[in-house]
């Protein structure tokens, strides 16, 4: 007696629920990844403004700044406003928590009454204490001497702010809006003057220096301290210059004249 074998109506092992689940997951993955892929594409296409990946930062260069205080006017803060505009620093009207990458400091000799005004920002030390103390290595110094914060690995411990002798760093105390693509910032991390690294890598100079020469007194000079032919090197060789807290032995890249 032959028995009729009953064939299943579907392929063996087929599970419609599973197939539906997988296709939903694939769609979800696509939706999740697509914007990232697109952003990557945009980033690649706009990378022309930044330093080309092939030309690595070289230690043959040391970027620095010379600020001549005889040309720096007491009431002028063009460098400060240029920095804020360039890097999208917007205050919230809270003086003690708002970020300041560069500020004008007024100093007076209490005995003689003589006073001066000078811009102070990250001094881009050759031996930066902020880099030494940072637990994750988020604070780092590029080969060309620019001291930066990696916004992806900063955990916001603020030890660098404790260590900086120049009070150059700010903690981002609240949410940010309208950030500049070339100066990424993030709530809960620490930041400071980048020496306008995006401009420098594209062959330009920092916004503060540009503003100072355009509308200010032309007190700020930017250049390569290692190139003997650069204007900054020649001036540093010719005139006496000072570093703030030179006694600490940190060798700041920002020098002052007539301080």
């Amino acid at each position: 007696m032959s028995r009729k074998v009953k064939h299943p109506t579907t392929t063996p092992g087929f599970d419609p629920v599973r197939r539906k689940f997988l296709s939903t997951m694939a769609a979800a993955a696509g939706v999740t990844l697509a914007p990232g892929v697109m952003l990557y594409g945009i980033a690649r296409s706009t990378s022309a403004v930044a330093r080309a990946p092939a030309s690595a930062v070289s230690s043959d260069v040391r970027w620095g700044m010379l600020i001549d205080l005889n040309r720096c006017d007491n009431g002028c803060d063009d460098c400060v406003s240029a920095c804020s505009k360039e890097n999208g620093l917007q205050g919230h009207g809270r003086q003690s928590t708002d970020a300041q990458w560069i500020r004008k400091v007024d100093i007076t000799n209490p005995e003689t009454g003589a006073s001066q005004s000078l811009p102070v920002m990250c001094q881009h030390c050759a031996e930066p204490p902020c880099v030494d103390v940072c637990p994750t290595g988020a604070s780092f110094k590029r080969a060309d001497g620019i001291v930066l914060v990696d916004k992806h690995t900063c955990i916001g411990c603020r030890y660098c702010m404790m260590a900086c002798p120049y009070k150059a760093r700010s903690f981002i105390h609240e949410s940010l809006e309208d950030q500049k693509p070339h100066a990424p910032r993030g709530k809960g991390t620490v930041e400071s003057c980048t020496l306008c690294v995006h401009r420098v890598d594209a062959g330009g100079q920092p916004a503060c220096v540009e503003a100072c020469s355009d509308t200010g007194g032309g007190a700020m000079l930017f250049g390569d301290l290692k190139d003997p032919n650069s204007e900054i090197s020649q001036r540093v060789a010719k005139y006496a210059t000072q570093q703030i807290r030179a006694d600490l032995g940190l060798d700041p890249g920002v020098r002052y004249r007539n301080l």
Partner: protein
Amino acid sequence: MKRIIYSEIEGRSPQFYALAAILGVFILAALASAYYMEHNGHYVTGMNNQIVWGTPHIFAIFLIVAASGALNVASIGTVFSKTIYKPLGRFSALLAIAMLVGGLVVLVLDLGRPDRLIVAMTHYNFKSIFAWNIFLYVGFLVIVVAYLWVQMERRMNGYAKTAGMVAFLWRLILTTGTGSIFGFLVAREAYDSAIMAPLFIAMSFSFGLAAYILVLLATCRGSNREIGDRIVYKLGRLLGVFVSLVLYFTVVQHLANLYAAEHIGVEKFILLEGGVYTLLFWVGQVIIGGIIPLFLVFRPAKAGSQNSNRGIILASTLVIIGGFAQVYVIVIGGQAYPLNMFPGMEVSSSFNDGVIASYAPSLPEIGLGLGGVALTGLIVMIGIKLLRFLPESLADSEIDPHHAISVKSN
């Protein structure tokens, strides 16, 4: 000496659950505070670009420093072979672990990006004393757990002395690391000194023992276990030695600074003109946390009298209050004094250069800090409910090898 029998506490009384619930509420409040701070940003706290480390750091540093000190009781028993302290060892190690965890949780939740804890665990800058401390903290937890194990597992008891020695050395290195977080800050006049390391070690001895005495006595009372007057008296006298040590290092710290003309400004600020910091230094740290406890533990009172025990409880409480005052003066006072960028000049700017920074602790900061203390308490409670940390009796007749002799001679 009789054999010591350790046992869990029953932990089923309404009081036990009520206390656990209260601590739980504090922990929830701390989590809510942390969320509030992270969601809005740190501007909702009292911290700013001048005072970058605030009240959460006071709690965290106090707990971390005291954690290593709480372990001392175990070290005295195993490393220095003082028999009477041996039964106290397990509980001392439990409190050390609980305090370190409580402190670290506060520290992590106060980060600008606590969600990046994994970054801190995977990216190390080995030149950073902060990074060394991460290893020291984790290592401390591992070593103390191992130390507990060799104490609790009878087959391993032979290794207790070795484990105790490793733990003791590690805790000295750990507190050296914590003190050096400040000692290595060359830019700040209030810190920048090698004495911060031994000062923090002395502080850890003192705060840790004071916390241990209070938690031990409260636990014994709560679980109806007897504790002998003799051991309480001895712990009290030891606390007195540690309190003197803190005062000694404090005197040397300020004397050395006063001798250098360049540091007169910051010393004048802390010791004379600093307002709340000066008040906290003299009244909080020196009088409440130093002189009164010394009087309480060393005054001529008969060992073991009811009066003497009360005095030791009060002294321990005052040492903790004084300890918080001291950490506050070191951490906040040291930051409030402006950086001396232009020596001899009067300085001003829109970024608060040259002025004494203002700071007032905010509610979320205090909530976060208290949550760390509550977590410490809850870990201890769960610990003694689950495992045998406490002897059934700490009566003098049970633990003091000289008890019989002293009774006879009386």
